[in-house]
């Protein structure tokens, strides 16, 4: 049936289908990291581009002249270490907050009847399609000293002076929560929806009340969703720039903001590259965990 011509065509087709995106991603995704690595080993100079090459022709031989100076500097100045630690802390607390807010939502959606479930799910997905910058902006309208919350509290006589909501850790946490809540709810919902109602009934039948059933059956069986959701929030939150820039205080260190400042304000590209490489090193384990969790999800 399939002649040599078809074979040739379909083989060529497969090669193209795989080859074209592969080439694109190698060039625009993988190679850039090698460039970042290269720049992170270079030195700052006042020229265009503002970094030295790491290979030079010395006596006619190409020689490696890069060094780890930038990395040494990162670990000697506690500004950077504190930025990393604070980013991880804020991302961790935000993931927990997201989980606490997101779990009841996912639970209610998973247990709702068909018509309502669609609507509730849509209401979670909708913000994901709207600009996160604008959602952060809307939050500023709530939190600013003359913002909605403060003017509301003052008008009801609960406080006399505006309370400080902006430029606090709380503002950053809540910004991360409203930005990444959909990413938490969706995997939780997927896990809870797979949960067989019979298991909950069996648990009740065997003597466990609703709370015990939740702890012993529902929660353990939704652990894959919890893990995936927390990682989906944690990973981007560590490198977040917009939220700390708009909602956080100037003294609040987050690594995304530090990288931005090094790059745009200090124009120290080699140091910014080193910051990026260390950030990737920090995130590589969570990323692998996420990939693992998702491929497990795919298999079951």
């Amino acid at each position: 049936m399939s002649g040599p011509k078809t074979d040739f065509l379909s083989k060529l087709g497969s090669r193209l289908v795989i080859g074209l995106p592969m080439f694109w991603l190698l060039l625009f995704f993988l190679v850039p990291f090698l460039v970042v690595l290269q720049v992170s080993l270079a030195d700052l100079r006042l020229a265009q581009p503002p970094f030295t090459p790491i290979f030079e022709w010395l006596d006619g031989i190409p020689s490696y002249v890069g060094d780890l100076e930038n990395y040494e500097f990162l670990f000697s100045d506690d500004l950077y270490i504190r930025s990393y630690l604070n980013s991880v802390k804020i991302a961790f607390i935000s993931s927990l907050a997201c989980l606490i807010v997101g779990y009841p939502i996912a639970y209610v959606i998973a247990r709702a009847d068909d018509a309502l479930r669609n609507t509730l799910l849509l209401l979670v997905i909708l913000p994901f399609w709207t600009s996160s910058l604008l959602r952060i902006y809307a939050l500023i309208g709530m939190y600013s000293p003359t913002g909605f919350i403060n003017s509301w509290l003052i008008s009801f006589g609960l406080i006399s002076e505006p309370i400080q909501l902006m430029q606090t850790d709380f503002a950053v946490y809540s910004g991360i929560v409203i930005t990444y809540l959909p990413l938490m709810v969706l995997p939780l919902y997927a896990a809870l929806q797979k949960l067989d109602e019979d298991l909950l009934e069996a648990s009740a039948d065997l003597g466990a009340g609703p709370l015990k059933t939740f702890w012993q059956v529902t929660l353990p069986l939704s652990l894959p969703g919890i893990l995936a959701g927390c990682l989906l929030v944690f990973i981007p939150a560590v490198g977040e720039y917009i939220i700390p820039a708009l909602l956080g205080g100037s003294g609040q260190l987050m690594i995304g903001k530090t990288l931005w400042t090094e790059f745009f304000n200090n124009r120290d590209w080699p140091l910014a590259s080193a910051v990026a490489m260390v950030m990737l090193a920090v995130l590589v384990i969570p990323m692998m965990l996420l990939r693992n969790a998702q491929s497990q999800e795919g298999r079951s």
Partner: protein
Amino acid sequence: MANTEASGGQSAFLSIRNICKEFSGVRAVNDVDLDIQQGEFFCLLGGSGSGKSTLLRMIAGLEKPSSGTIRIDGQDITETPAWSRPVNMMFQSYALFPHMSVEKNIGYGLRQDKWEKAEAEARVSELLELVQMKEYGKRKPHQLSGGQRQRVALARALARKPKVLLLDEPLSALDKKLREDTQRQLVAIQKEIGTTFIMVTHDQEEAMSIATRIGVMDNAKLIQVDTPRELYEKPANRMIAGFVGQVNIFEGQVSGSGKNQTIQSKDTGNALEVLGEHDLADGQTVWVAVRPERLLIKTRAKGRAAAAPNKAAGRVTDIMYLGNITHFEITLKSGKHVRLTISEHWDEEEATVRLGDRVEISFEKRAAVLLTR
């Protein structure tokens, strides 16, 4: 109508009164009364949507009755939540907790009841022994075969020593061969521990071979409660007669009254006679049910009508030889098809019947059941 016989004088172990269940205006269970004695193996038999599973789930406490009461051992449990009822259920899907080992699954109910650790362990291994799963205690449910899962589900449901064990189509996921073995095991286990079993099934053969008594449900109502033999021989209506095994039903018209009352059938072209006194009205339509193996057959000369009560003339239109038994299909003169089964010990005359032969079929009065519905 349902059941009064078993309740006798003393009150029953499980007693259900006037139970109803509505789902958004639709009655799934309609005014059911049922009494079940301690140690019975009771089967609820019915088609899908008949309300049998809903009734079972109400006993388990997984559905709340719209009205009516449920008592177990003299105690009203209608309002008791599922987790504090002295009944346990074996789910159709088995509902084994996928994140727990076999042992943990079986011990789940014991942990809820705060059993001593040593006692609970002893109980779990006792149950593993009972269902012949001793070597599989550490396995997870997904590492077991269908039959093994079924046994774990049984052990788990028995762990808390429930007063009544409910089984919701427990064998429907198994293939035919395994199902028959498991039926025998279930009966043996029930006899051994003496717990009251209530099983829901849509498979009449299963119900007939397992149950001490069967309750037949149809269209949200409990139609008849009887032993398998009574149900087979004295079905309450045509639906039940057809449901429990194959049956031939002859329609007839009552004429006259008192001693002279007769039933004339267009199906047989003759009168129908049955044993006993029946209170029938002139002109009423009734049906007479006869099991295929209770029909008699003999060849008939051409043109000779079979003019006598409980007889009919026809032709053999199909013969299926199955070794120990032979099925005949006979088309009567009225056009009605009749099924007839002969076991291997047939007499001389029956042995000569061939396909296409003119035959006369007949049945004895005591083989016939009169049905008014």
